[in-house]
């Protein structure tokens, strides 16, 4: 309750968003300069048509930038944004700062459905020698994420009250079940399918292309359109579902929309980048401490900070083990898990554990 704390909380939303946007651009620009073929900042401006430069160098830099680096940065930003907003919405829905789609089996559900579709789809298509269409993965991942979220919600909610203990324990069980399912598909898979599945298990942005960016973009647009209308309802939900109803919130509709959105966002992120945990828990929590829990600011700020964090993490993943790449899922788990433990210790009185 320092004065600084209250001052930060009362910052206008526009200022918070503006600052985060600037940081995102700076981190993205920095990330664009890093890699096997280095592009110093001085040449980055030329490659982006902002300045004139040596034509031969510019052409080479542009090739690296537009074919490899930019799609990867944009995809990382989008995936991070989706995961962070999905976490923020899920925490609001369950009134629980420990909720994260990656922890409670939603990501694993999406990953399992995707892994299953790789193995089964591949077998079915083997006779025709056709290649498994890329578009099928987001669709099956969506079904898996939706199933996991719905099961979790109906498990944890009885008579309008959501039990945090049942929610966390149920989430662990769902995650275990989905992970067992993934193990089973690994067992059934041949070498080539195994390589594809491993991608889900570790999480990576290595295969980023502009077509993947285009596939994820609609999800981000959808959330940007819908989220502002959910802010007041999610705020009111902190008092409990019945109190939110007393305040005039159509709670059942809000819950349905939130569950479908969470599932869609996680499915989009998981189908493009695999299972990346802890972004959804770290980002909204940091922001609640800094700028307060009101969703009108929290949701857009989570979107931007999630993007910043994942672009930064992916840059690290590209650098620390160069020329090899560290799977980003491992990196976020390595840094996110200690953070989660610290959070749990600080808040265990609050969540009644």
């Amino acid at each position, binding site marked *: 309750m320092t004065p600084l704390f209250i001052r930060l909380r009362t910052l206008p939303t526009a200022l918070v968003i503006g600052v985060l946007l600037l940081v995102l651009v700076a981190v993205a620009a920095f990330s664009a300069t890093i890699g096997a073929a280095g592009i110093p900042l001085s040449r980055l401006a030329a490659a982006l048509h902002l300045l004139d430069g040596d034509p031969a160098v510019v052409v080479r830099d542009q090739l690296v930038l537009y074919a490899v680096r930019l799609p990867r940065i944009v995809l990382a930003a989008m995936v991070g944004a989706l995961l962070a907003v999905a976490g923020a919405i899920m925490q609001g829905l369950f009134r629980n700062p420990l909720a994260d789609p990656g922890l409670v089996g939603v990501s694993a559900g999406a990953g399992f459905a995707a892994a299953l579709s790789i193995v089964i789809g591949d077998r079915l298509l083997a006779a025709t020698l056709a290649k498994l269409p890329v578009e099928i993965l987001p669709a099956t991942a969506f079904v898996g994420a939706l199933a996991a979220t719905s099961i979790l919600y109906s498990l944890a909610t009885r008579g309008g009250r959501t039990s945090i203990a049942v929610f966390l324990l149920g989430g662990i069980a769902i995650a275990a079940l989905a992970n067992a399912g993934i193990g089973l598909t690994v067992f059934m898979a041949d070498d080539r399918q195994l390589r594809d599945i491993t991608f889900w298990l570790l999480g990576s942005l290595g295969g980023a292309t502009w077509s993947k960016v285009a596939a994820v973009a609609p999800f981000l647009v959808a959330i940007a359109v819908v989220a502002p209308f959910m802010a007041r309802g999610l705020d009111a939900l902190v008092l409990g579902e019945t109190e939110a109803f007393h305040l005039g919130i159509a709670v059942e509709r809000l819950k349905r929309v939130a569950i479908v959105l969470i599932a869609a966002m996680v499915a989009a992120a998981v189908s493009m980048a695999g299972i990346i945990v802890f972004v959804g828990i770290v980002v909204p929590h940091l922001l609640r401490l800094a700028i307060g829990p009101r969703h009108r600011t929290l949701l857009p700020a989570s979107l931007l900070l999630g993007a910043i964090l994942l672009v930064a993490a992916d840059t690290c993943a590209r650098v620390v083990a160069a020329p090899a790449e560290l799977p980003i899922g491992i990196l976020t788990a390595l840094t996110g898990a200690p953070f989660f433990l610290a959070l749990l210790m600080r808040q265990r009185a*609050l969540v009644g554990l």
Partner: protein
Amino acid sequence: MSALEARGVTVEVGAARLLDGIDLRVDAGETVAIVGPNGAGKSTLLRVLAGEIVPRRGEVALKGCPLARYKAAALALNRAVLSQHIVVTFPFTAAEIVWMGAGDRRDAAAAALVEAALAEADVAHLRDRIVPTLSGGEQQRVQLARVLVQLACAVQAHGPPVLLLDEPTASLDLRHQIMVARLARDRAAAGMAVVAVLHDLNLATVFANRILVLDRGRLAADGPPAAILTDELIGRVFGVASAVNRTPPPGVPFVLPQVMTEPDASSA
């Protein structure tokens, strides 16, 4: 047209009948206390009146229109509810919680309503405090202030609303208990209908101009405190032998329960 009218409300959970054919009319300007022993159905009745529970049989009309015909947003502008034990899990400040009573409004008039409510519920000095760090009684008063803002917004939208309170004084000290009772009477004087579940009979007599006694899901008595609270009723419904006394004029009844009645006396 009554502010609130229940007709033949029956609520069953499994084989248990929690409410059995309750008929009830509350008019604008009334303060009604619902009292009764544990498990009598007091909170269930309040939740039916609030629209949280749809009764198995019967219906509730708010300002002449069945509750089922209201959308949540319209309902919020015609009745407000203060529940017990609201647990806030995120670090909202008291002022942010109180603002929730204003819905989508962010205008200067709403800000004035928020300020007035913060002062009236005696939480103005807590406005920047994080709600989960406040004491139980302080949190309850913050929630009260939020409900006061909702009431004021409802008045501006559709005229005097209905106010429903579930044990509003449970975690409050003596001074704030009386503050809540006075607030409720003020609101009734301003044309609202106020219904509160209370378990303290003495507070009920101060609070309400009409007491409704529930016993095992049925109405055992309904009327002004002075007429309702008798030695016989308290012995029969609560199973406690007591002599109802009177304060000096105006002669408000008060009860000092002393001895449990024998089982055969309570069924007599």
